[in-house]
Every structure is written in C-alpha cells, then in structure tokens.
C-alpha cells in the first residue's frame, strides 16, 4: 500500500515540481525584460525619423469620409507619393467607433486612427497611442494652440487635429421673410436677427407656430447633452473644474441656461423630448416643416441628400454659427444685452497606435493627411471645418466662423478624460425632464421657478459624482 501511495505521490510531485520550476523560470525572464526598458521622454523614442520600407499601414477613417469618396482620394494620393518608399496605406475596414483599448493589445487594431479627441485621449492612460514628436509635425504652425490643447497630456502631443466639431445652425434661407431687413434686423448689420440671437429665434419660431400649427421654427432634440450643455456653459456652468471631484453643472447662473432650454422646448412639440428630431431633422428641414436645426458641420452631406430627395434646391440650405443668448435668459423679453453662446465642441484628429509596426510611416501618413491640400479637399467634399488656420481661411464662411469662435474661447472642448462617459446619462435625463416640462399638465410641471432648475442641476451633478466616485 505504501509503495502504491508513494507512486501516486511521486507522480504528483513530478507535476507540481514542473509547475513550480517552469512557472518560476517564466517569471524571472520577465523581470529581466523590465530592467532593459527605456526611460520615457516627451515623445515616443520609436519615432526615429527613418521611414520603414515595404510596409502596409491600416488606417481607420470615419464612415462619411469613406462614403463620400474622400478617403479613397486620400490614400490614392498618399500611395502615389510614397510608392518609392514602398509604403502603402489601406482602409482598416473596421468599425469607426472601435475601442483601441480592447483591440490593440491583442493585435486587432488599426495603425492610424481618426476619432474624436475625448475618445483618442482615453487611450493615453494605458499608452495605447504614441506621443508624437512636435518638430516632425508639419501642421504644427498652422493649427491654433487651442486645438492642440485637446491633444495634450502628460507633457506630450498625442494627436493631430483635423477638424473642429462644434454645433452650427442649419436653416432654410428661403423661409426668412422677404422683408427681414425691416422686421428682423434690429441692429441693421445685414444679418437676420434669428441667426444672431436666440431671443429673435424664439419669437420667430413662435410666430411660425401661430401661423401654421404643422410648421415649426427652430427644432432640436433638446435632451441631447452634447448640444444642451452649451446653455449651461454660457451662464457659468462647467462639467469638470480642477479635477473630476469638482462638477460644475449648477455653477454660476447655469440655472438660467436650463431655463432657456425650457423656453425653447415650449415653441417646439413633444418630438424634442426624445431622439425624434435628431433623426427626422434632415428630412423635415428639406420638406420645409422645420425652419432650423442645430447639429455638427460633418453631417452636411446628409442634408444635401435629403434636399435632393425632396426636390428642394440645395441653395436654400443655409449654415450659420449659433446665435447669441440674452444675458438675463429671457427669450421673450424686450432684448437684453447679448452674451456669446458657449457651445461644447470637439476636435477630431489622427493618432498613431502604439501597436503599429511602422510608427514612422504612420507619422508620414498623418502629416500627409493633415496637409493643406488634403484639408481643403476634405472641406470641399465633407463640409467639415478644418483645424488648419490656412485651410480654414481659404475655405472661408463657416470654417472661418467656427475657427474664430474657437480662438475666442466660445467653444468648450470636450474634456479629454475617461470620466466624461459618466456625464451623458445623468445630464441627458435632466435635459429630457426639462424639455418635457412645457408638455406636462398644468399642475404637474416641475420647473416653474428658478430654484427648481438649480435643484435639478445639483441633483444631476450629484449623480455624475456618484457614477464616477462612489464605486472608485
């Protein structure tokens, strides 16, 4: 019996010994590797300046750029320019909203990514994207510092701004009354008032509704925090202050901004409470049911498509910077002093994945794609606002306006922190609550006085705080 137990014991010792020995040895070789790692510097040492030869880089672009044919032009031009070096750029053929944090470490991500700044900067924490050498960035001089700021972290630059995303107004220029110079140009500056002031827009919208119950002036899915947060910012609110412990939705006179949202909701219909307007805005602007909607510059082509389908001349589609707000927040009032509408914006751009095998070739691609010619082409095909000052001033119009707003600090760039993801649901719930209020029966309205707005904002701020910190 002893012998047989010993035999089993011996077998067990063999296996345990193997596991112990080889497990330990595997660990030793790991620690040795650690000592040979290189000290970090302001930018990744992998940017040696020497182009890799015979490599293919996979580029992630956004769907609109691919659909409109811009991306094909871009890689064709790049591949022609770099044919001698044997560098080839291809479509990564992946989801535009992919998460590099999930895909990259296992080898399934792209080499170069085009995404929004809050998404890209999320990758910095885990070193999933490379810090770029500023000297080697050809667009360095041309892109304003405020745009670069969106890509700065830990003393490094992690991306190249390509376009500025900020809310703009799309409207039907043919629906502005013919006599607007007399009736709707109080300051006689040659620009219709409803495009300059939310007060005038509110009064104009109410006029349209009273004339025809099936027609609307300004329409927007008001619950959408990306757009609605701007009203809070304009009166002193903010998302994060020093750090994510300081949440400032109710700071300053932000409650006044929340009141503006409720007033705007009252000249719309219930569609503003959910996503309906966001989705039907394109078609209803084309059909003339809506006078104006607010959205980002990069969806321009969706509007032109709907205008063509509806048989409305595209000339009737106007795009303008967002109007200004009355300082007292009373849209129906006689017209208080105007303050700028601070909107939330973002900067989309290119970044280089840490998991690429050819960082220098990727950098060459980023430089090529953010060059003057490609930027102008991008603007022409996609209607986006170039971040390059020279391209923006050449493109003129909207691009110039948005760039000016950015320079004047009237665009609050989305914070590039991970915790931002926790803001959307609490804020969205609050804004849909406010938007719904005018449509509640008289006795059930929640937001009839300023204190109610303040309380709502504080509650939403607390929810954001809870979401970020209670479980930390």
């Amino acid at each position, binding site marked *: 019996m002893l012998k047989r137990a010993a035999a089993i014991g011996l077998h067990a010792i063999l296996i345990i010994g193997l596991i112990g020995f080889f497990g330990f040895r595997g660990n030793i070789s790991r620690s040795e590797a650690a000592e040979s790692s290189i000290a970090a510097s302001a930018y990744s040492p992998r940017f040696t300046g020497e182009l890799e030869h015979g490599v293919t880089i996979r580029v992630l672009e956004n*769907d609109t750029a*691919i*659909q409109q044919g811009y991306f094909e032009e871009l890689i064709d031009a790049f591949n022609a320019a770099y044919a001698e070096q044997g560098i080839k750029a291809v479509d990564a*053929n*992946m*989801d535009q909203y*992919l998460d590099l944090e*999930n*895909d990259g470490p*296992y080898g*399934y991500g792209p080499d170069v990514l085009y995404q929004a700044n809050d998404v890209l900067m999320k990758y910095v924490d885990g070193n999933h994207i490379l810090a770029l050498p500023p000297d080697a960035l050809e667009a360095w001089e041309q892109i304003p510092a405020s745009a670069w700021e969106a890509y700065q972290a830990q003393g490094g630059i992690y991306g190249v701004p390509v376009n500025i995303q900020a809310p703009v107004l799309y409207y039907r220029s043919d629906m502005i009354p013919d006599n607007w110079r007399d009736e709707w140009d109080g300051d006689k500056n040659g620009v219709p008032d409803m495009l300059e002031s939310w007060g005038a827009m509110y009064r104009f919208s109410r006029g349209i509704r009273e004339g025809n119950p099936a027609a609307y002036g300004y329409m927007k899915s008001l619950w959408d925090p990306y757009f609605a947060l701007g009203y809070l910012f304009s009166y002193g609110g903010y998302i994060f202050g020093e750090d994510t412990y300081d949440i400032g939705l109710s700071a300053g006179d932000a409650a006044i901004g929340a009141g503006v949202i409720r007033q705007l909701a009252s000249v719309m219909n219930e569609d503003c409470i959910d996503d*309906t307007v*966001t*989705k*039907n805005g*394109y*078609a*209803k602007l084309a*059909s003339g049911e809506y006078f104006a909607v607010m959205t980002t510059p990069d969806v321009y082509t*969706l509007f032109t*498509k*709907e205008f063509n*389908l*509806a048989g409305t001349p595209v000339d009737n589609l106007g795009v303008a910077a967002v109007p200004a707000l009355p300082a007292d927040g009373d849209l129906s009032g006689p017209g208080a002093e105007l303050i700028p509408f601070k909107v939330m914006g973002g900067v989309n751009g290119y970044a280089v994945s840490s998991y690429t095998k050819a960082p220098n070739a990727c950098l060459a691609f980023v430089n090529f794609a953010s060059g003057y010619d490609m930027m102008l082409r991008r603007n022409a095909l996609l209607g986006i606002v170039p971040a390059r000052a020279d391209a923006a001033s050449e493109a003129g119009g909207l691009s110039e306006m948005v760039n000016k707003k950015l320079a004047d600090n009237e665009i609050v760039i989305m914070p590039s922190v991970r915790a931002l993801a926790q803001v959307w649901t609490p804020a969205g719930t609050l804004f849909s609550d406010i938007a719904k209020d005018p449509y509640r029966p008289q006795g059930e309205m929640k937001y009839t006085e300023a204190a109610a707005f303040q309380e709502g904002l504080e509650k939403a701020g607390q929810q954001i705080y809870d979401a970020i910190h209670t479980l930390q």
Partner: protein
Amino acid sequence: MTKKLRIKPAATADAVITYTVLIAVSFLFLFPCLWLVLASFSGSGSIYSFSGFFPGSFSLSSFGALFTDTAMYNYPKWFMNTLFIAVMSCIIGSVLVLLTAYVMSRFKFKGRKALMRGTLVLGMYPSFMGMIAVYLLMTQFGMVNTHWGLILIYSAGAPMGYMVQKGFFDTIPYAVDEAARIDGASSLTVFLRINLPLSLPIIVYTSLSAFTWPWSDFILPKLLLKQKDLYTVAVGLMSLGETEFARFAAGSVFIGVPIVILYFCLSKFLVSGLTAGAVKG
C-alpha cells in the same frame, strides 16, 4: 337526427369564435412585420416621411442599394457570412444538445442530478458579464476575426439549453426502448434508430432555434468580428447610418426570409410525433 341538429349551432359558434381569435392574433403578429416590409419599399428612404404607419411612395431602391452599393455596406457578403455561421452552428449545436438531452433523460448515472442542478444554476448567471472573458479567451486561441470561433461558441453553448429536449424525451415511453434492447440493440442504436425518428418535432424545434440564435445574434459577432467584411448581417445593419431606415428595413426583411422558408420546409415534421399506435405497440 335531433341530437345532431342541437350540436350544430354550438359547433358553428365554436368555429366562429376560433376563427375570430385566429384572425385577431394573426393580425397582431402580421402588422409589425408588414410595417417593416412596407418600410423597406419606402420611396424616400427615411422613416419620418411616412404619414401614419406606412410610406407615402413606394420603390425598390432600398433593395437595389442593398445588393449593389456594397463599397461601404457589403450586404451580400454579410448575408453569406451569417448563413455559413448559422448553418454550421445549427448542425453541430443540434447534435450536441440532442445527445445531451437524450443522455440526461435516459441514463441514470452517478452525478446526473448534480449535473442537472449545476446547469440550471449556471444558466442564472448574467451572460454578458461572461462576454469579457469569452473575448479574452478567443484572443488567446487566436480566434478573433474568424467565423469558426463564433461557431465554436454557439455550438459549445447549445447543450446548456438541453432542458427543453430532455422534457420531450421524458415523454417517450420506456417500453419502446426496452423492446429494442431485448432484441440486442446497443444504446447508440436505440438512440439513432428508435428514439430519433420518434422525435422529429423536437428535432425541428431544436434546429430552428439553433439556427435562429446565431442568425440574429448581435452581441457575440460584434465582440469577435473586427473586420467589416467578416460582419454578420445583424452587426452590419446596426452600423448603417441613422437616416437609412428603408435600407435597414430591407436588410431586416432578408434576415427573416430564410427562417420563414425553413419553417415551411420543416412544418410538416413539427406535428408528426408519436402516433397512438406506436406508443402502445
């Protein structure tokens, strides 16, 4: 004679009620499907130009776009990918689940009840929590971006749902097995020759559900397929732009077609269970 006359009105009333209910139920099920089908023929492409439930103008353009405009959204390719995954998972998964259910129903081995309780408990675990682990596992097996990886997961997960089939096998009388066993048939033979042919309805049910799960699943392929040309229809449709509802609807209609065809092919087996004679025999 008088008796017959008295029954007739009752039977007629019964039939009238039955058919009224049937028509009402059929309408309830048909209406949303009809809405989807008609939306796919919408002329404008946008869902918001409808007045009431249905589009104002009709055209075939969304179907045309679905199969010709493939640069960005390669629907035919997605369709073939999905078909491959669903057919393979259906075959492998059905075999595994039928085997499991049969064994659990007919063999009284040690640890059987523990196994039954164990699977029940495992089913209670919220599955999406495990998704993170499944993804990590597949990266280690090198099976991300492969269709076989998905087939493996669907097939391996199928036996967890053996309860339905076991319940069916439990109702097949033992007498049938025992007769065959006396003739010297092995367990495998009894299963293949005696029990399976008696189980056509549940085989049909099993294969239908083993087919529809991968066919319409969205979460797993989204997790494991990174390349757009490997997408399944469900993932592909969800990546369509928000203004392309008609195309979305057209794509959805095409997802439904194979399942309806499968149903019509298999429906006669669905009700061809045991006849009274076979039970008593």
